[in-house]
């Protein structure tokens, strides 16, 4: 494995640096070609997102250290002085590189732990490199394995599950209360931007109807038209609370708009069916005592933020699980690497034996008629295989370090060439 990764991310470089080395999507194919043609790399891939820029490459024709050449490329491409990037770049190779790539793909290295975008960006970077003909054996094995690891992490841990933004938390809570949102009605009180955002996510998550109430009827009609909802009566909140399940409050009022007695009576008329009130307004529009009413759940903006924080912490716990999966996969991957090496040795060992036999036989070629010679040839090959066989068995069955050592030993003794 002589892949090398050079890059920087949100942890090692501030935005001022990151934006200087970012690659435009349209410029990627050219940049990749330049890496392969001018810089002579066998393989190359460029990952460029707003939080990271990473170059992966292997093998140069001139034998210069790969990481140095990659740094050189980065500086030359962006016409930067090497000293600007010096303190921000990291370099990975061998197992560390595999580990890093797996972590990035699984979103453990992301700014928002567990966010799903990075995998898509990685897939894009990979297919771009593939189209540019820059993917060879090494990247072609590593990156798809990284996708596989990311999938495992997503399936086996909950690192990307819980909501980590205000409006997605509102949806998550609604789902925790109502289960399916299908058939539920959202009431939007007021017309704040945040409120509309939350209403939109609720509708996108399956809520069936939306009603809009505003102090000015015109404004209510406007917003209702935008969502394809109905206009609700602002002066009869209690009735509205009976027919709605999720209430989003974001009026510009300086005072409480939703009071305890409204909700109290409404809950009773709802036969204690839960009512979820999200108060996004600052100052608050819902009397805090509302939360004390049975089966009424009232969250203000700080409460939502607290859930975001708790979910992020939950993701941290899940991330540890993910780290153990990644360690396991790094192990599997390098084991696969070794197996491939051993396999290559086994193959070329057999070939060398065959060659020796045939060479020796060809020296006496003239002493035999053609048919006899063919028979002898077959016999010699069988002999070669039989000699090779126990070696193969031994190599293949052994535990790892010993097997690798044995393989290296055979390679050395018979002066076997590398074959891949």
């Amino acid at each position, binding site marked *: 494995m002589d892949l090398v990764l050079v890059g920087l991310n949100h942890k090692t470089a501030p935005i001022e640096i990151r934006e200087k080395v970012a690659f435009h999507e349209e410029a990627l194919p050219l940049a990749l070609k330049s890496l392969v043609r001018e810089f002579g790399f066998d393989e190359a891939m460029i990952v460029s997102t707003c939080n990271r820029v990473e170059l992966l490459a292997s093998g140069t024709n001139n034998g210069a250290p790969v990481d140095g050449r990659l740094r050189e490329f980065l500086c030359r491409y962006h016409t930067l002085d090497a000293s600007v990037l010096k303190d921000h770049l990291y370099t990975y190779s061998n197992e560390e590189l595999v580990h890093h790539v797996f972590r990035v793909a699984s979103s453990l290295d992301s700014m928002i732990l567990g966010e799903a975008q990075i995998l898509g960006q990685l897939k894009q970077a990979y297919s771009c490199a593939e189209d540019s003909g820059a993917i060879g054996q090494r990247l072609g094995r590593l990156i798809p394995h990284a996708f596989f690891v990311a999938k495992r992490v997503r399936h086996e841990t*909950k690192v990307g599950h819980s909501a980590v933004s205000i409006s997605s938390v509102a949806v998550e809570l609604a789902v925790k209360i109502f289960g399916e949102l299908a058939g539920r009605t959202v009431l939007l009180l007021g017309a704040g931007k945040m409120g509309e955002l939350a209403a939109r996510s609720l509708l996108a998550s399956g809520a069936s109807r939306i009603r809009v109430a505003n102090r000015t009827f015109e404004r209510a009609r406007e917003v209702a038209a935008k969502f394809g909802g109905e206009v609700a009566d602002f002066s009869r909140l209690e009735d509205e609370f009976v027919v709605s399940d999720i209430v989003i409050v974001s009026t510009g009022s300086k005072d409480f708009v939703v009071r305890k007695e409204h909700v109290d009576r409404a809950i009773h008329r709802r036969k204690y069916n*839960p009512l979820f009130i999200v108060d996004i307004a600052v100052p608050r529009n819902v009397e805090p005592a509302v939360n004390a009413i049975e089966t009424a759940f009232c969250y203000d903006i700080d409460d939502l933020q607290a859930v975001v924080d708790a979910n992020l912490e939950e993701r941290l716990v899940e991330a540890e699980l993910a780290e153990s999966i990644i360690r396991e996969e790094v192990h599997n991957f390098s084991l696969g690497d070794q197996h491939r090496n051993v396999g290559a040795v086994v193959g070329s060992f057999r070939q060398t034996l065959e060659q020796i036999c045939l060479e020796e036989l060809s020296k006496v070629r003239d002493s035999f008629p053609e048919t006899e010679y063919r028979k002898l040839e077959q016999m010699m090959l069988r002999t070669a295989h039989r000699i090779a066989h126990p070696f193969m068995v031994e190599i293949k069955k052994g535990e790892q370090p010993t097997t690798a050592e044995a393989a290296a030993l055979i390679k050395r003794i018979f002066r076997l060439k590398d074959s891949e």
Partner: protein
Amino acid sequence: MGGLLFNAAFGFYVVGLFHSGIAFLSKKDLFVRVALYSVAAGFVFHSGFLIYQGIEKAFFPMIGLRESLAFFAWTVTLCFLIAQFRYRVRAMGLFLLPLVAASMLSTVFIKASPIPDILRSSWVYFHTTFLFLAYGMFFVTFLAAIFYLLQERELKRKKPRTFYYQLPSLSALDHLFFNFLIWGFVFMTAGIVVGIIWAEQDWVKGWHSDPKVIATMSTWVIYLVLIYLRVTAGWRGRRAAFLSLIGFLSILFTFLGVSFLGGQHSF
């Protein structure tokens, strides 16, 4: 053979319980699945055990405390499997399987009792099966109410911790609660009706003053009230949990306590 089946069932239940515990702590779905499948396997062996015993004794094996405990464990497990496949309440196993395991284990220490002649009637099949299914369902109902309370508490306090992540939505728990409540009640009513017909036919008079009959009727009334309040006044959460706790305690009293008070049901 019977002992082997019993041990296999018990073993699988314990494995299921163990994995439910790990699933609760580690939050890995894998353990939930392992737990579910081992309980299902245990259930198969348990059914085999009951059938084997029935054939061996040429009688439905649920007479006396020992056999009825084993049968009770079976109905509770059945309810668990239904609830789990239908509602996927991850935390259920951890709270329900201890009861199953304890019931199974306790049968080891209780001596089998001979079958009284009066019970040699096919009425007993329906009477006990219905009532035991009802008891199993009411236990799930009780757990669902507790889970509802726990989830509601975390939602109210706005500090998501364990149960917020482990339990399904309030609405799902409410459905679980209500469905098992209704079905439990249907089975209980059927069991009681069968019992009354049977008693009228075969028994000496005075069956209505039998302690177990009275206790069962009180339990039935408690659940009737619970359903009534739920449907008309929308009782859920704390109030429902409270009533279903009383109901379940009443079942335990009916099931275990009354046996010591004498009467027709004391075998």
